[in-house]
């Protein structure tokens, strides 16, 4: 538990010192929203509003890929990754700390992006804000768990920026499908379909366990 908190504290502190990751993710996210607006002719119509949940999640996935790709950049200097591998506990706790930091940073970006999205696509999010936050958290948990695991994998390969999306996207399909379906339903009639939530919970559980156990091997030399 201590290791989890130590890594979380360290990551957030390093991020706070430079804030470059969160700013990059925010700017990128907002740019994506603007690009979407221009690529859908006719502005905010009923048709575009129907695709809004999907587009929102695409923006979230792109922002997440950007953030995850940079989450181990501090560890590349001075071989700090080996320094972390020396912990006298299960290395899965290191994963939890890193994953939690990634989730928090992503969460901030997601909140701001959602507001901008609501403005651009003229969707009112206030009645479902709480439940939407819950769905987004559930989906992002899946994103950040295997995302953190494979960010650690990608950082040990030759083309890490390219490697991460290649590895992650096929594995993210269940998360994406569940999240988009739940978000659509929330915006349409305020309910969250049980099947989608169930899929997200199962996927999150599987990916969390896999990442916790797998991290031990990924940090080994």
């Amino acid at each position: 538990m201590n290791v989890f908190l130590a890594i979380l504290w360290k990551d957030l502190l390093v991020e706070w010192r430079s804030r470059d990751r969160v700013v990059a993710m925010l700017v990128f996210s907002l740019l994506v929203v603007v690009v979407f607006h221009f690529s859908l002719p006719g502005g905010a119509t009923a048709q575009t509003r129907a695709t809004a949940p999907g587009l929102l999640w695409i923006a979230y996935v792109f922002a997440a890929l950007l953030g995850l790709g940079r989450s181990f950049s501090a560890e590349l200097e001075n071989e700090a990754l080996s320094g972390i591998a020396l912990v006298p506990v299960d290395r899965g706790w290191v994963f939890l700390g890193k994953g939690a930091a990634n989730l928090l940073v992503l969460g901030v970006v997601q909140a701001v992006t959602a507001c901008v999205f609501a403005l651009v696509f003229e969707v009112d999010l206030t009645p479902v804000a709480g439940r939407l936050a819950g769905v987004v958290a559930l989906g992002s948990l899946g994103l950040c768990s295997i995302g953190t695991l494979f960010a650690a994998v990608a950082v040990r390969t030759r083309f890490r920026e390219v490697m991460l999306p290649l590895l992650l996207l096929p594995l993210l399909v269940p998360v994406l499908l569940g999240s988009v379906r739940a978000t659509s339903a929330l915006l349409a009639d305020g309910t969250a379909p049980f099947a989608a939530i169930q899929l997200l919970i199962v996927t999150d559980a599987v990916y969390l366990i896999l990442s916790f156990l797998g991290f031990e091997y990924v940090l080994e030399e």
Partner: protein
Amino acid sequence: MTGYADGSTALRASGILLALLALAYGGQVILAPNDSMQGVVQKILYVHVPCAFAAYLGFLVTAVCSGFYLATNDERYDRVAAAAAEMGVLFCTLVIVTGPIWAKGTWGHWWAWDPRLTVTLLLWFIYLAYLLLRSFTEGSERTARLAAVYGIAGALAIPLNYFAIDLFGGAAMHPENLQRGSLGQGMGWPFAVGVATAVAAFAHLLLLRVGLEASVSPSGGRLSIRG
């Protein structure tokens, strides 16, 4: 594994496989009746479905060997996992190529986002990502370990993908030909031979590939197939 013990065993195995292929060809193309609704185009399924078996079998082998590799640190398991992925992606490509050919002949369009085809497409991407990960990582021990983690992740993702797409994805347009009695009269045997041939071909190619890798590696291995 070191694959086949020697060249003559491998040759004999190739011979058996060719005989099986001839049998399958004869049975499927010449003897089997044409499907009443779909016509002769249905016969491509004798290739499509067995290849799908082999493609999924391939990833199962990769995932299981990955697990054993992580548990034992024995590089022989990694060799089999890598070879199974290389062979599996071949069969997976065949599935994705033959699928649209059948689809165009029966439904009238090249592609449909039905669950099985979509999951197979995702499997193809997972295979490719696995192979790219292997080629972009330096150091064989690190490659083996990272690839093993991805192999297991991919294997877990496939059933998750299936449930996800089944619940929310496209229309189910695949014929339910895994149930008993759903195949027409006279199609059972050619179908079974087809599956046996594909699995045999997969195993044969796997052994050849592992044998190739083992002959290059200095440590080799003790297990082998003797003819």
